């Protein structure tokens, strides 16, 4: 039977149809009741057939979640935690091939263009539809090399020791209220292990998608890059629009061992009503390199500060962050660098754009611990404000506990200049096209770091954000 599409948020019928603004009707097999308590957590764990240690982990996290106050900084969070579904399992089993995937779910993915993407150079696709990874594939040669790329639920069953050794170690349950929430009710997410010396030259990719009203999505990702190994993980998120709040609260932990290298790329385009509260942190050991590339579009409020802790000498952390805040959106995004060992190098480049009353805040930490001599840390954040109604703030926190270090911080705020617009329009470009070009140019230093198809997608998403903007 064909799936039915309901175009939401098209009251007037004249607005352009956002490519990502559709909803597919699904038949959930199991949906826990709304709300959060010990019973729900026990139910989730039982449905997943989890070992006792994981149930205990969840129950402890639930207590921590309830005991912690809401953060008093960042953005305003108006959420009723008892009015959210914490677990929905869309299909009985995880599909092994594309043919096994139910048609209405497939339909959603087809609209997102995943099959085309897969035909190209994808190493493997993990597509998260609601709470469970339902479809995945991994090239055989990677499996032969011992690379593990699976969903985290499967990893709990199939790789218990490896997972337990690192799970919740980088981001402990007590870290913050939302990390505790995720720890209590997490579901899905990716688990990646790259063995010693194995270098994966093409990006591993995952798509995430929320598709049930009032449903939180709490994926949990753990990436372990062993000594001298290399991986690039790409995560793209799009969500359809709904009328009441939705919550996305992920935890991503990354360990990069000696001489290893990991790049984690995220492009997010959440619907305007979603709270996106994510904790991402990596530990980089001796001479290892960790890079976060983080693009945030959409959502009502995003609070996300990918972190790199440089644990041993020679470690390097690089964070590139793009935020686009449109009408009714608050992007409180940034990055953290923590130098915990000598001769470590960190760099943050942040670019934010605010438009139509949107608010973009850069919030970042640069910390050099005692003993981290010879470390270098550089922070550059640039903001572009498109109109008088929009806002940009910078909250840089710098803590330096060592003398012999080099710290740089540069910040700039600019507006689209009349002269730039005139120059471009005098070459035949409409004002809207010219503004889009200036914005794309502004973020180009980050876009060129993305794989080609993501760069194209990001440019297209920005074009959608820019359309009809200039009057």
């Amino acid at each position: 039977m064909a799936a039915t599409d309901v175009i939401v948020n098209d009251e007037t019928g004249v607005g352009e149809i956002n490519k990502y603004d559709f909803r597919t009707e699904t038949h959930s097999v199991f949906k826990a009741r709304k709300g959060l308590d010990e019973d729900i957590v026990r139910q989730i764990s039982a449905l997943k057939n989890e070992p006792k240690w994981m149930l205990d982990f969840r129950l402890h996290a639930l207590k921590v979640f309830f005991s912690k106050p809401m953060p008093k900084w960042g953005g305003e969070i108006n959420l009723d935690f008892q009015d959210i579904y914490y677990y929905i399992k869309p299909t009985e089993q995880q599909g092994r091939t594309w043919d096994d995937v139910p048609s209405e779910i497939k339909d959603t993915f087809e609209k997102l263009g995943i099959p085309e993407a897969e035909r190209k150079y994808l190493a493997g696709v993990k597509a998260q539809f609601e709470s469970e990874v339902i479809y995945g594939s991994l090239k055989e040669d990677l499996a032969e090399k011992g690379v593990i790329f699976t969903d985290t639920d499967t990893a709990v069953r199939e790789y218990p020791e490896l997972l337990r050794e690192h799970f919740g170690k980088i981001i402990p349950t007590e870290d913050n209220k939302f990390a505790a929430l995720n720890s209590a009710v997490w579901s899905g997410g990716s688990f990646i292990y790259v063995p010693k010396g194995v270098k994966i030259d093409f990006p591993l990719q995952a798509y995430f998608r929320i598709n049930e009203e009032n449903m939180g999505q709490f994926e949990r990702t753990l990436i372990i890059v062993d000594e001298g190994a290399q991986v690039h993980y790409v995560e793209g998120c799009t969500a359809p629009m709904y009328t009441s709040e939705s919550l996305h609260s992920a935890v991503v932990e990354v360990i990069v061992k000696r001489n290893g290298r990991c790049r984690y790329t995220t492009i997010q385009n959440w619907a305007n009503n979603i709270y996106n509260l994510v904790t991402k942190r990596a530990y980089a050991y001796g001479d290892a390199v960790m890079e976060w590339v983080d693009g945030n579009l959409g959502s009502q409020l995003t609070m996300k500060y990918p972190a790199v802790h440089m644990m041993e000498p020679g470690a390097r952390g690089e964070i590139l962050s793009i935020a686009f805040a449109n009408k009714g959106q608050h992007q409180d995004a940034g990055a953290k660098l923590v130098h915990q060992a000598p001769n470590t190098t960190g760099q943050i480049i942040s670019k934010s754009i605010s438009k139509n009353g949107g608010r973009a805040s850069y919030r970042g930490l640069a910390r050099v611990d005692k003993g981290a001599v010879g470390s270098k840390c550089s922070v550059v954040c640039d903001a572009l404000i498109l109109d008088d109604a929009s806002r940009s703030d910078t909250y840089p926190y710098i803590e330096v506990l060592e003398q012999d270090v080099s710290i740089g911080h540069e910040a700039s705020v600019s507006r689209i200049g009349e002269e730039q617009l005139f120059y471009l329009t005098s070459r035949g470009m409409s004002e809207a096209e010219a503004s889009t070009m200036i914005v794309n140019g502004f973020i180009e230093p980050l876009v060129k770091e993305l794989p080609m198809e993501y760069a194209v997608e990001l440019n297209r998403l920005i074009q959608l954000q820019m359309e009809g903007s200039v009057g």
Partner: protein
Amino acid sequence: MSETLEIIDLFVEVEGKPILRGVTLTIRRGETHALMGPNGSGKSTLGLVLMGHPKYTVTSGDILLNGQSILEASPDERARAGLFLAFQRPVAIPGVKMADFLRHAATNVRNPERKEGEDLMPMKEFRQELRAKMAQLKMDPDFARRYVNDGFSGGEMKRAEILQLAMLQPKFAILDETDSGLDADAVRLASQSIAEIGGAKMGLLIITHHDKLLEHNPPQYTHVIMGGRIVETGGRELADELHRNGYQRIRDEHPEAAAMNDTNTKPEAVTA
């Protein structure tokens, strides 16, 4: 009927201050006009007004392109109608590659009905053409990958403007001091380039202080602007004379315009 750009008794203000005080000038396609004048005479203003800069207000007079007024047209509409201004000081657009910029510009100018988001001209065709034009102008192919005017030397900026002129092939082009900041060899190359890319087929208004740029683009008319008005029009020989002797004779013959011009160059001296 030949194509014309007509400037009719044009008065222009910027922030309430009059700059042009009745400029009248007609350029037919295929003609080359030189526009000379001391600093503050209104040369650059004329170029910017013709292109539709929002800072300048036309208080009276008209600008006609092939008989149609373009006063209400936006800069992009003017560009699509066949007007071009080579900027004296082009602005940088960081992060935007010359090639992307030129592909958008060329597509819009060649297909004036194009709406935003519609297809650009085919990449292959565009690339071939761009490469050929850059070779003709003796430009390094790497130039296409640089960001528009970002970190360009004075000479590179001017060459980039000529490259745009070559790609867009307008009906009428205003070249605002395309020779300033260039050494003698670079000016000669610029002059040659303008001729080679078919400047003679366009209607050219060349704003310059020197005669070198005119070497390969001999003007049929030379106009002298002073105090916001064209005070004298002659042939090629007038350009040569001004280059040799400066503006003193003109000043002596038009003391009122000269006084007006001096007021324009000293904005702090203007009293209400």
